[in-house]
């Protein structure tokens, strides 16, 4: 009934030579031992507090014993907290490691260095309330965190403004299930008929707006992690496409999170397996997706299309980029309309073709795949120019 087992008392009694201890005495002593130990520990905690510490040390227990006029426990004097080790195989059994030391070793060992003497150093923790960024102060990142949490902000006139804390987003159980289902389908069964239905649902369902931030995060996360899984990427782009089609959701605030993933699927160096997967299709699809985004939200975000075209042009004009990247860039630019092609592609066409030509010729480019790629790029350029003429 006490946390000190009777057996312990028995063993201790035997160790000091009392063998004829009656069994009735054991529990009484055990419970009293527990009471005393608790009492001593409470005193020890007081001593710890007055030593301005938050870790209990053997010294504190000694001082507590001293307060009761009890002889201290010898052999544990150390300023540092004791280091307990977990006994192997037990979850809640700890011990203090106590190594055997050879006398000879101790005696022969050179004297350890004298510990450094206590010093006081001064620095500015704050100057008129602002913490200077000096090595003595915590690094600015650490400083920034608490001030972000600081729930008050003072306006110029000194009236405190209560900044609202981040609101916990509550999703209904149904929505959670829906989200889980969709993501699972996207990841694992994107070729099933069910996925098609899911896409239709995404494009039409009016109640899924609360899930938009989760979907954007999901897409961004999956794209960045799975650049070599072609089918997944394609599924993700189709998911984005469906979301964009949905007239009931308000996706603008999340576009900035979505665009990087989409652009990745357009101009990334490798999308899925180079040989087996038809990444050209994905690039075509994504190009259309980008175009539709630009068309739909271009008037809301004036810098959306310029930024997209800048990225694409950058990919297009960089000769060090791989041919599939060029392809994606050209496709993307072409889908953005004849004006873009005229302004951005045509002026660069001449030097580009000069660059592309050797890649397409049998004698100069021995690699079959590379040559094929070059031809595809050539086709894309032709198409782009064709849409100009039409």
């Amino acid at each position, binding site marked *: 009934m006490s946390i000190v087992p009777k057996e312990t008392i028995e063993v201790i009694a035997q160790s000091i030579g009392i063998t004829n201890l009656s069994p009735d005495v054991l529990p009484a002593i055990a419970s009293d031992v527990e*009471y005393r130990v608790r009492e001593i520990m409470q005193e020890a905690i007081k001593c710890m507090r007055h030593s301005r510490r938050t870790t209990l040390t053997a010294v504190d227990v000694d001082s507590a014993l001293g307060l009761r006029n009890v002889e201290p426990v010898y052999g544990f004097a150390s300023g540092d907290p004791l280091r307990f080790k977990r006994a192997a195989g037990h979850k809640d059994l700890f011990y203090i490691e106590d190594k055997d030391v050879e006398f000879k070793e101790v005696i022969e060992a050179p004297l350890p260095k004298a510990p450094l003497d206590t010093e006081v150093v001064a620095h500015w923790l704050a100057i008129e309330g602002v913490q200077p960024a000096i090595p003595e102060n915590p690094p600015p990142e650490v400083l920034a965190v608490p001030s972000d949490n600081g729930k008050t902000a003072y306006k110029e006139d000194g009236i405190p403004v209560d900044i609202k804390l981040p609101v916990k987003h509550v999703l209904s159980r149904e929505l959670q299930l829906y989200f889980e289902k969709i993501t699972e389908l996207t990841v694992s069964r994107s070729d099933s008929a069910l996925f098609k239905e899911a896409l239709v649902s995404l494009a039409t369902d009016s109640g899924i707006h609360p899930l938009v931030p989760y979907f954007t995060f999901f897409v961004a996360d999956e794209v960045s992690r799975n650049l070599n899984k072609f089918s997944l990427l394609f599924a993700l782009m189709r998911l984005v496409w469906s979301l964009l089609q949905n007239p009931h959701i308000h996706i603008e605030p999340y576009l900035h999170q979505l665009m990087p993933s989409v652009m990745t699927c357009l101009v990334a160096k490798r999308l899925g397996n180079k040989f087996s997967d038809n990444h050209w299709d994905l690039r075509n699809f994504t190009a259309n997706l980008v175009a539709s985004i630009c068309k739909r939200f271009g008037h809301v975000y004036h810098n959306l299309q310029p930024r997209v075209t800048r990225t694409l042009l950058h990919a297009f004009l960089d000769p060090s980029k791989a041919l599939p990247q060029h392809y994606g860039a050209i496709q993307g630019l072409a889908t953005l309309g004849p004006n873009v092609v005229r302004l951005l592609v045509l002026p660069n066409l001449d030097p580009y073709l000069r660059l592309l030509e050797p890649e397409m010729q049998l004698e100069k480019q021995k690699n079959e795949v590379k040559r094929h790629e070059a031809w595809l790029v050539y086709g894309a350029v032709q198409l782009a120019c064709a849409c100009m003429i039409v």
Partner: protein
Amino acid sequence: MDEEEVEKAVLAYLKKKGFKQTELALQEEQQSRNKINSPSTDPDIAKHILASSDAENVPAQYQEGYSKLRSWAYSSLDLYKHELLRVLYPVFIHCFMDLVAKGHIQEARAFFNRFREDHEMMHSRDLQKLEGVLSPSHLEEMEFARSLRQSKVSVKICQYSYDLLIQYLHKTQSITMLGIVNERINFQVSPGQPSSISDDADVFTLVGSGHDAADLVNQKEIHWGLLEDSLEERLEKAGDRITDSDKADGEVKDGDLEENKKRSADGGKGGSTQKKLKKDKVVATTGKASRSESSTTSGAPRVKPELTLPIIPTEVEHSILEDLRNRVQLSSMTLPSISFYTFINTHNGLNCASISHDGSLVAGGFSDSSLKVWDMAKLGQQTGNTPSQGENELAPNENILNANAKGRSYTLFRGHSGPVYSTTFSPYGDFLLSSSSDSTIRLWSTKLNANLVCYKGHNYPVWDVQFSPVGHYFASASHDRTARIWSMDRIQPLRIMAGHLSDVDCVQWHANCNYVATGSSDRTVRLWDVQSGECVRIFIGHRSMILCLAMSPDGRYMASGDEDGKIMMWDLASGRCVSPLVGHSSCVWSLSFSCEGSLLASGSADSTVKIWDVTKSLKVSKTEENKNGKTNRLRSLKTLPTKSTPVYALQFSRRNLLFAAGALTKIA
């Protein structure tokens, strides 16, 4: 129930318990009584006896009774729920203690562990204490348990809740619970609506003297005003003016009074200010008490000192006046600069630190009984980056650094024979007091670098010692549950303040020196009249040991910090908590008010210094007292984290520069 049944029950009980003699005696008496035809017995008592006759089931009764009461309370209407829940805790601990007292140790343990979680949040410290009680003798021995069992707990409750409770107890016939409620709880039934949840904190205390006594004590009159004719007061207004105009056009020398007069003439009060200033000059040089009657700037009433105050040397007065004139005005918009003194290589040995009023001296008390004093002005010369401003001309001269032969940067004071728990500098930095586990207090001279006096009086470790704001007198707090007042020239204490129920952990003087506040492990703060030695206020509200106290410079408020990181601001006059300041996550080691009382700085074991807005806190709590929880947030102005350095000491200099000290700890 008729009489025969009762008798049968009694007999059965006696048989079971084996009280043969009593049984016989009873039977005899019965027979003789039968002839006289005894009066009828109260059926309730009979029931009670009947119930207790099956002694086997006592523990079960407690367990079941409490558990039913608990589920009833939890499922009651929200309106009354929190009031009814209040009753649970006293019932819980008394059930436990009754079980222990009756010897059902095992069951008591089980009972305790089963329900302790309900009360863990509010009463974890009490539970820790009670957890160790394992035999009836422990109940006798442990002071806490004894005082619980001897006194009744008062619980504030509204009429409806009270009726509900009584009705429930009657209806369910849970005699055990009714017995406990009847025996141990003193209901303060208030008519009308249930009280709001927010004032739960001070609804009851289990400590012996409880609220009634505290209320009684708190009705005594106290004069919290400032001392007449304090230096601050003399210069407060004039000083403010000067600093203002200083800002406007740099230096205003005494010779420029004419110009100053012109400028301040617009202000209206200008003329009187000048007059006052001149007067102050006179006062300062003669050191005579002649105060201009015109103003009490801080709005605090003035009181006469009850102690004979020491005379301040003229040059000291000059330097203080100089400091006051150069004081920076702090407010929520202008936060202080903080100079941090970090102790390095302390090997976990630093127990306390204190900083002199001008920040030029730093003392550290160590667990190896040593006391070390650093002269920061000197360190500054070496390192070139100390922020000491040379505020005080009294800083020790060159010729005293004798102990530094071995290249030590500090002066070592040896004399104590146990860990040093507290140190304090006299207001002018020329004396240093230290208190130690060897139950003595020692007075050291920082000029002579020598021990002057050893004050013996306490019987146990002295946890804290504090110089009075005027010097000469000091107060100490000890494990022997007393606080004592001393003067430097006597080796015996002048007053002994006894009354705390546990260690007195910290002590602090009121700004007018007529009162001393003490914080204790019994989780109360008390205010004592120095002259009479009487306790004049008891502040109840903390839930753990109180570690530090600070008095506002206008004498109206007091702040106290506890082990859980909670700071409470108290109104001395009413004895009530004005506002709890929540934010620290660990022990608050130190508190300090800025000189004009607008800011409160707190230093904690969570390695932060927090700056709190006092004026706003007070205003807010006055206007919307009821919305406690929501307004809390507004009061913390700034959190300044240190680099894994718990903050041991804080000190606002007279110029409102904040000094802080702490020991760098290795992150394990």
